[in-house]
C-alpha cells in the first residue's frame, strides 16, 4: 500500500512558513500530522534532521518546493511539545519520533495480552516484539527503547512489571 499524501503536499504555500499566525497554526498542524503518518507508514522511529531535509516529505521534487531547515525545526519543536518527538542530542541533529506515544503503545500491548488471556504471564522483550504470536500486531517490530518505555508506562499504571532476566529483560503483566 503506497503512502497517501495529503492535499497540502501539492499546495506550494505549504512549503513556505506562513507569517499569519492563524494560518501558520493550521499549516504546522498539517505538517505534524504528515510527518507522523509518514513515519508510521514507513515504520520510522528515529530521524536525522539532515536526512529528513532530503526525504520526500520535506522535499517535494515534482513541484520543486522544499521546507527550509528553519521550518523543519519549527515543525519538530511543535511535535516535541505534543509529546511525539524527543531530541537525541543537544545540537538537535537526531530525534526519536513517536508517532504513537509510549502510553498508547502500552495500551495496545496490554489489550493484546488480556485478549489472549495471558495476564500474569512473563514474556521476554524479544518474544513480545519479535515473537511469532505477535506477528499480526501493530507493535510487532517495535524498537527496544520504545518497547521498554511503553512497558514502563504500563508499570506506572500498575499493569506490568519490567524484570531483569538472565539474558536481558522481561515483563510480567497483571
Amino acid at each position, binding site marked *: 500500500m503506497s503512502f497517501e499524501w495529503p492535499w497540502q503536499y501539492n499546495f506550494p504555500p505549504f512549503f*513556505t512558513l506562513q507569517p499569519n499566525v492563524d*494560518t501558520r497554526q*493550521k499549516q504546522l498542524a498539517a505538517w505534524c500530522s504528515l510527518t507522523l503518518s509518514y513515519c508510521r507508514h514507513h515504520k520510522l522511529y528515529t530521524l536525522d534532521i539532515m536526512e529528513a531535509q532530503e526525504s520526500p516529505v520535506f522535499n517535494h521534487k515534482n513541484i520543486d518546493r522544499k521546507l527550509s531547515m528553519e521550518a523543519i525545526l519549527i515543525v519538530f519543536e511543535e511535535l516535541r511539545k505534543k509529546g511525539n518527538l524527543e531530541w537525541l542530542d543537544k545540537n538537535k541533529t537526531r530525534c526519536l519520533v513517536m508517532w504513537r506515544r509510549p502510553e498508547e503503545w502500552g495500551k495496545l500491548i496490554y489489550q493484546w495480552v488480556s485478549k489472549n488471556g495471558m495476564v500474569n504471564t512473563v514474556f521476554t522483550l524479544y518474544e513480545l516484539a519479535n515473537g511469532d504470536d505477535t506477528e499480526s500486531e501493530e507493535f510487532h517490530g517495535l524498537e527496544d527503547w520504545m518497547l521498554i518505555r511503553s512497558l514502563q508506562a504500563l508499570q506506572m499504571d500498575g499493569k506490568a512489571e519490567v524484570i531483569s532476566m538472565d539474558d536481558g529483560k522481561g515483563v510480567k503483566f497483571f
Partner: protein
Amino acid sequence: MNETLVIQQRGVKLYDGEDKAKLDVGIVLLSTHQLIWRDLKNHECCIAIPLSQIIYFEEQAAGIGKSAKIVVHLHASPANKEPGPYQQSKFSYFKLSFKEHGQIEFFRRLTEELSQKRWESTPMSQPIPTATNSQVRGRHRTDNLLYYTLLCYTLLSSAILSSAILSSPVLCYTLLSSTIRFKSYLLSMGIANPVTRETHGSGTHYHLQLAKQLGDILLAPLEERGGMMALTEVYCLVNRARGMELLSPEDLVNACKLFESLKLPLRLRIFDSGVMVVQLQSHSEEEMISSALDNVTDKGSLTAEEFAKLLGLSVLLSKERLLLAEKMGHLCRDDSVEGLRFYPNLFNSQA
C-alpha cells in the same frame, strides 16, 4: 551646462552700503551666473548682479540685535545696465542681512561659485526664471500644447481620418502621448494660489490650509487611480502642480495627517511595512481585500507584479493589498526562488 540654481535663502534684507534699503524682506538666490535678490511679496521687484561683477565679499558676524551679514563689493556697474529698483548708489558694496540664518552655507556656496567661475565656461542662456516670466513662458508653452491637442482631438473625431490614424501606430502614439502630456499640463495649471508658509505663516494653520487644498486637488486623481496613491506619487503630483512653490515631504505628511480631523474625505494610511498612501475614505478595506481574494482565486495564484498589471496599480500598492488580504487570513504565500506568490488560503478553507 546652462545656468542653474545653486542655493536660495529666505528672509534676507538688503543694505545699500551702510543704509537699510527701502525694500522688504526677500529671498536671495545664487545661480552659477548671478546673485539675485527678489522681494517676497512683489516678485516683480528683483535685483540681479552678475557674479563676474563681484570683486570680493566678506562675512560680518551677528551681534546682539544684529543678523549675520555678507558684504559684497562690486565693480562699477556697466553702462548698459538694465533698469532696476535701485538705479544708482553712492556705495561700491551692498550687504545681505540674513534674518532667518543660512548665511554660513550661502557664504560657502558663493565662495565655491566665485572660485569655479562657471559663468565663464557657459554662456548665460536665459535669465533665471523669476516667478513672473516663468509663468508667462509656462503659459505660452501650455497654450501651444492645448492647441495641438485640441487639433488632434478634432482630427480624431472626423470619421474619415480616424481609420487612417488608428492604422498608423506612430500617429496613435503621438496622439496618446500628447493626451498624457495634456493631462499633466492641466494638472500643472491646477493650483493657482498654492498655500505657502509665506501666505499662511508657519505651524498648524499652514498645515490646516494645506490639508484643505490637498483635499481639493487630490480627489480627482485618486478616483482615477482606484482610490489609492502612494505618498511619493502624491508628492510628485502636488509639487508639479505647485510649480515654483515646492512643498517639503515633512509638510506634506503633516498636512495629510490632518485629513481626518478636518473631516476631509481623504485619509493618510500607513501600512505595516511603513509604506504610506493617501486613500479615499470611501475606499473600504473590505472591498480591497475581497478584490484581492477574487483576483487571486480567479487566476489560481498571483505575484504582486501580475496583480499590479490586472489592476493598473503600482506594484508597491498592489503588494500592500495582497499583504493585507494575507494578514486577514484570506491569502497565503509561496516564497520560492521564483519570487513571492500569493494563493487563496486553502489552509483555512479546506482544513
